[in-house]
């Protein structure tokens, strides 16, 4: 009897684990469950050992757990790969015919291939597997067959039908197994479930960008940043987006800036290593006061590091990227809603303040799939702040707030002249120290307004009464919430930052008389240091992890439990 189940599907790259998990997530969501999945995989195209965790929970739980309740082993080395997460309670589903009896008593022989062949081809075994799960949990088969009909519609009726047969064979097997092994899912499904959408972080980012009026992207593929590029590339016609695959990251950001100068709403996407190469471009954005949104999908460094794994190690990089002083904003969303919303904010702020704005995500966030109420997905007004120029237009006119009205070439009677050298109000090279001084101030002054309007963090649990605040940013939003919930100790409250720079000075008051913990997925505690520096407060504890894996709920609970007894 499971009230909160963690199932892991594991096999080699290319074995189609995604076919199983894609189907299950869809059907389970339709049925009304709360579902979540996250994936870990190797940097290779075929072979190796990858796995995807699916959680089915009554409460919304969008976080990675270490525990494996059921493991579907699709290749030999699965148990070796996951040994740290398998316990005596883990049920293993595997084909004994293929893998022998290596997994002992806890293994339920699951003849996927046999059923698949029965349905028409060994290729259907993934569908069989999904069927087994749905059968075990008594999820109506029709939901699955409906899904398959749609999915394989294009491939012709025969294929669709065979898939349905495979599904059904698996389903019956699952139902029987559940009965024998006394397996059941005890999750109450609300009668009237609000409409929910199901997607991964990259998709949310793409939706946010499209909603933000993004119409230009030039980028170079790099995991895990590529998802956004692919999302937009597949919607060029539909939304009028110009998509260019750049020859390198330097080209990407310079093309983005060129486009932005000419009036496009531009974004670039990359990961830490590619971003290193963009830094001179970031500095250019600062100098020419041209908006650009920069998405950094973080992964473990240094250098190539672990290209398909996760880390939150690029905060300092984003914070100090590009030589010279100028204003910037850094968002760090942790939920689908936050991704969609901060992405829109990012574009609007970039335009309003004529600055580079960063969105920091990571592999874990981008590739985790979860749900969100459709009605809560909000569109912000697309703000452009462009002016039609007159003949006397000056791109860098001095104004009270340091923001010069921004024109674009070809719109109005003026000329728009931007210069990476220090320049005067007209954009002409200058060596006047006086103008230099004023231009430096101009570029920095907007930080004040950016601070005052910075997003407030989210409170998790009883922040007021808590003695200790546990602070997270970015992808750790849900793991923190669940850990605090599991811990159930009112001495702990949570605070999550979906904007990490600049920080709203108001937060200082939150921290009064509190012990502060910061949890983050890097080796040194970059946000802890930033927070400590900006607020002048001591961080009592850094909960860190930099192995390339995300935090598990269990280890955060343990870490907090332990501190409680310190």
């Amino acid at each position, binding site marked *: 009897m499971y009230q909160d189940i963690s199932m892991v599907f594991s096999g080699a790259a290319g074995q189609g684990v995604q076919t199983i998990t894609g189907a299950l997530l869809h059907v389970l969501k339709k049925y009304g469950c709360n579902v979540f999945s996250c994936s870990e995989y190797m940097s290779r195209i075929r072979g190796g050992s990858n796995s995807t965790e699916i959680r089915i929970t009554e409460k919304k739980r969008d976080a990675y757990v270490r525990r494996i309740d059921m493991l579907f082993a699709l290749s030999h080395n699965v148990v070796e790969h996951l040994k740290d997460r398998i316990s005596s309670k883990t049920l293993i589903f595997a084909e004994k015919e293929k893998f022998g009896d290596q997994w002992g008593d806890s293994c339920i022989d699951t003849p996927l291939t046999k059923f698949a062949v029965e349905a028409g081809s060994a290729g259907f075994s993934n569908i069989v597997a999904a069927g087994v799960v749905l059968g075990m949990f008594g999820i109506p088969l029709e939901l699955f067959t409906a899904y398959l009909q749609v999915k394989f519609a294009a491939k012709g009726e025969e294929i669709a039908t065979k898939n349905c047969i495979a599904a059904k064979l698996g389903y019956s097997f699952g139902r029987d197994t559940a009965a024998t092994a006394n397996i059941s899912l005890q999750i109450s499904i609300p009668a009237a479930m609000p*409409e929910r*959408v*199901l*997607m991964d972080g990259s*998709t949310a980012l793409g*939706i946010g960008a*499209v*909603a933000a*009026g993004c*119409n*230009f992207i030039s980028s170079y593929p790099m995991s895990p940043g590529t998802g956004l590029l692919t999302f937009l590339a597949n919607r*060029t*016609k539909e939304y*009028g987006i*110009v998509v*260019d695959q*750049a*020859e*390198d990251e*330097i*080209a*990407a*950001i*310079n*093309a*983005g*800036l*060129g*486009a*932005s*100068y*000419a*009036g*496009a*709403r*531009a974004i670039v996407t990359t990961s830490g290593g590619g971003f290193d190469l963009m830094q*001179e*471009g970031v500095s*250019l954005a600062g100098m*020419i006061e041209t908006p650009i949104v920069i998405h950094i999908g973080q992964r473990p460094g240094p250098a190539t590091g672990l290209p398909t794994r996760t880390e939150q190690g690029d905060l300092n990089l984003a914070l100090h990227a590009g030589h010279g002083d100028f204003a910037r904003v850094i968002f760090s969303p942790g939920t689908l809603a936050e991704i969609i919303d901060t992405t829109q904010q990012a574009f609007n702020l970039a335009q309003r303040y004529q600055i580079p704005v960063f969105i920091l995500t990571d592999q874990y966030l981008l590739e985790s799939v979860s749900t969100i109420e*459709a009605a809560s*997905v909000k569109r912000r007004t*697309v703000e*452009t702040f*462009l002016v039609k120029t007159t003949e006397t237009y000056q791109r860098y006119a001095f104004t009270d707030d340091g923001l010069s009205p921004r024109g*674009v*070439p*070809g*719109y*109005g*009677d*003026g*000329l728009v*002249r*931007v*210069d*990476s*050298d220090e320049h005067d109000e007209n954009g*002409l*090279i200058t060596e006047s120290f006086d103008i230099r001084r004023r231009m430096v101030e101009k570029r920095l002054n907007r930080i004040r307004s950016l601070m005052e309007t910075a997003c407030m963090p989210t409170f998790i649990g009883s922040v007021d009464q808590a003695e200790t605040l546990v602070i997270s940013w970015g992808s750790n939003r849900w793991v923190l919430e669940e850990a605090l919930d599991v811990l159930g100790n009112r001495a702990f409250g949570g605070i999550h930052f979906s904007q990490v720079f600049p920080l709203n000075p108001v937060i200082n008051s939150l921290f009064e008389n509190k012990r502060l913990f910061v949890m983050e997925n890097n080796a040194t505690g970059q946000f802890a240091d930033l927070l400590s520096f900006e607020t002048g407060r001591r961080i009592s504890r850094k909960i860190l992890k930099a192995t390339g894996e995300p935090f598990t709920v269990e280890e955060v609970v343990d870490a907090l439990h332990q501190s409680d007894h310190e």
Partner: protein
Amino acid sequence: MHYISQIMNKTVTPFDMPDGIDVAWCPGCGNHMLLKAVKSALHELGIDRKNLVMVSGIGQAAKSPQYIKANMFNGLHGRSLPAALGIKLANRNLVVVVESGDGDMYGEGGNHFLHAIRRNIDITVIVHDNMVYGLTKGQASPTSQRGMTTPLQENGVMLEPFNPLAVALALNAPFVARAYAGDVERTKEIVKQAIAFKGFSIVDVFQPCVVFNKVNTYQWFKERTVYLPENHNVRDRTGAFGLAIQQDKLLLGVFYRNEQRERYEDQMGIGTIPLYQSNPLDEEAFQKLVNNYL
């Protein structure tokens, strides 16, 4: 025509900057003549400066847009081409002309040079090829001749000079030309053809640097350059390659034209409405987008 009189006898064009403006080039530099040729070409083509964007990187050559009354994007060293690409893709109604130096374009910016040509976007690239790094005081550039000594190359340049025409031809650039700044009139004509060409056009312009390049002087170019014959076949890519790598005489003119290559912006289906006029999603379209994931 004598150098000084060419410069002094400045054509009045709509692209002239106000008189007071400080031109940071050395007296006698080929840049002055090339500037004149470019402004005249723009004028004679009847281009509206409000729709013209001059794009450059950093260097002496890259200051050119500072001296042309038009829109300007004076970006980073070596990065003029990506910026120009972004500009043109964001608004194809704009005339986009890149002016930069040999170091900027073929050194720091070499990778963009390769891939911009592959894209074939309708921009014109004019390279002030003085075969030296001017602004940073005389180091070798990619086009420096072997053996030339410089403050950094005291034993002479050891690298094979970069041959921009040959490389452009290898990449199937659709318009490949070479000019000589010392001949303002014919340079202007070549630049006009390049700008009028509907696709990526590159004009490598020999430009004497009177301070740092004591090898490739006005005299040197005068002795070695000769225009391609009238009947030169501009469609023969391999032939053009042979002429481009020829060393005894340095040929000038349009080496190669290929109107067959499709432009990037056309293939992408970019229309005439600039991106700054795109309409954001309305609520309905937004809901539709979200509802794909129901």
